[in-house]
């Protein structure tokens, strides 16, 4: 892929990726089903997001062949830079907006806000 001979990604690669992805998808689905009662703590969020990130890595490697081939460095560098920028933008925005939302909610709305936001 990319700078490489594209048939670096073999049938085995696609098959392994496919099976693993199905497994990860179903596992996430089952976890969610078991927690419909609504007490969604951070552990649950981390578990589900973790499964998603794992599946992303699986598909990047097994479907897209990221990192394979004679000189894959450039694609990886661009990819990691994107991850860094996206993390800064998304996490930064979440931090900023969370902070702003709390501080800029009017006193009359604050109880409602805290109830919705933090389940207080």
């Amino acid at each position, binding site marked *: 892929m990319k700078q490489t001979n594209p048939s670096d990604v073999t049938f085995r690669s696609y098959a392994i990726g496919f099976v693993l992805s199905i497994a990860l998808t179903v596992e996430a689905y089952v976890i969610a089903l078991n927690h419909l009662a609504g007490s969604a703590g951070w552990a649950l969020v981390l578990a589900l997001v973790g499964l998603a990130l794992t599946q992303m890595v699986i598909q990047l490697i097994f479907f897209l062949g990221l990192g394979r081939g004679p000189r894959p460095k*450039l694609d990886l560098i661009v990819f990691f*830079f994107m991850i860094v920028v996206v993390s800064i933008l998304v996490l930064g925005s979440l931090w*900023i907006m969370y902070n*702003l939302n709390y*501080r800029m909610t009017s006193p009359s709305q604050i109880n409602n806000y805290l109830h919705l936001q933090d389940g207080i």
Partner: protein
Amino acid sequence: MNYFGGLLGRLTLQALQHNLVTSVGVIMMSLGIILVVGLMFYFKRWRWLWKNWLTSLDPKKIGVMYIVVAVLMLLRGGADALMMRAQQATSVGAAHGLLSSNQFQQVFSAHGTIMILFAAMGLMFGLINLVLPLQIGARDVAFPFLNATSFWLFAAGAALINISLAIGDFSTAGWLAYPPLSELRYSPGVGVDYWIWSVQITGIGSLLSGINFLVTILKLRCKGMTLMKMPMFVWSVFGSMVLVIFAFPVLTVTLALLFLDRSLGMHFFTAGGGGNAMMYVNLIWAWGHPEVYILILPAFGVFSEIVATFSQKRLFGYRSMVWAIWAITFLSFSVWLHHFFTMGAGADVNAFFGIMTMIIAVPTGVKVFNWLFTMYRGRIRFKTPMLWFMGFIVTFTIGGVAGVLMGVPAIDFQVHNSLFLVAHFHTMIIGGVVFGYFAGLTYWFPKSFGFKLNERLGKYAFWCWLIGFLTAFLPLYILGLMGATRRIDHYDASLGWQGLFIVAAIGVAIIGLGIAFQVLQVAFSIWQRKSNLDLSGDPWNGRTLEWSTSSPAPVYNFAILPEVSDRDPFWATKQSKLVEDAKPNYKPIAMPKNSGLAIMIAGLAFLFGFGAVWHIYWLPAVCLMGIIVCIIVRTTNDHSQYLISADEIQKIEDANATRRQYA
């Protein structure tokens, strides 16, 4: 009254209503268009224009077209500036100046949008097109057709913002259109929609250029030119394009969300319905901050080239310059909140971004010192490009320290959205970006056109710009500290501000004189070109590869792609006094054929935007189909290149060698 049973959306004859100010604008625009069209018919140059310019995929041509459009937009933005200064100098107490509040708001909104997104970006992409392939020893950019499409999309955006002068109104919400003001409820007219679509269309062009130039730098460098041997201009473009690639998608999304709010009744940023206007501010500045670094980095690159060439000394501290570019690029993504310290975030958030803001000043400082160290013990020639650099050093430092000052949240609370802020960012953009690109234009003009610009008029222009700029903006720093807010079209006489506003107006008039000198310089230089010919291709005793070609360079740039082993490879060649191959072995070269599809795609994009603005719903749908068809047609074109035979290359090279002998 709607004609054609709604076929024209909300476009009615009322859109053509004008007041005095817009009438003058429309008349001048129309006269300009009539003049150009008339000249084309008179000299029978339509075919020539189409074949040699409008359908060209040659970045040397595309660069010139970018600069032409950018300069026209600079003039329009400058006219806005003149109006604003006139207004603020005269609209005191009982007097209310020549503009109504509504007009004034349209003028400052247009001014900011035009200057940043069309004048500055246009000059930048223009210079990159002209210089980048030559400096890396390549024949072209990575994707020539995409390059042309990017230019024409830029032009389409410019056309859209200009047509808003004639048909309908422009936005009154500032150059960034904050909601809730920019939402449908408070801006029900077409103005904000015009703003959204002209910025969106040009933004897509910019994003495509970012990809194009990044791949060009990474994949098309000539043999031996490792990353650490690239000219500093190329490094700076690299950093800038990395920023373009990661910042512009945020702009695309934000504009789209605002448009969805306005057109489909969504609630992203509305003042009710679960919207959050602060999220818009957050997103738009997550793009907006990288944008200003996108503009300044190539200007830094231009100065690196110029300081080395005109000090006749290699650039000091190459490695630290590269490090500084990377640091600036990376840190650009971590400071954006400093544009809205006062929106209400807590001290922890503000402090983090304040500290990051101060840190980002450090690599810039490193660059300034490296330029000064380059000059130290050099044999400096004070040609016009070097003067622009000296002007930059003075002004950019002033603006820079003002910026670091505002990076302290507590101080920013005092001066946010005051004229102090306005003075700061104009100092950076004019002193940094504009001076840099003017320097670049003067420096690379001979390479592009084959003759030099008149030196004396260039110097007059520079001094008018420098003195005019300081006269116009130093008072604004003071006014800001006195409490003057930005974007005001009237104020009380008792405030005692008028004197300084009058000084500022005089300053802008001096800048206007500077612009007049520049126009005169170009006209006079064209008239006198035969006595200013650049026969050697190296008018400045340059150091980098572009100076090894003729002026102008042949369409294929290099008959034989160069192989380098040093930084400043052309300088190394000149020093070693290598004897060139008497009879080089030329091989045929494949170059891209012209294509009218690029201008067609952009024309459809323009109509798409126009239709979206006026709710002429069938128009965007049809145009989108058309664009898809154009793309498919382009991909089915198997014969998109033509061959230049070895004989033709021989002839061109021989002719250029003859010219060099007369140098």
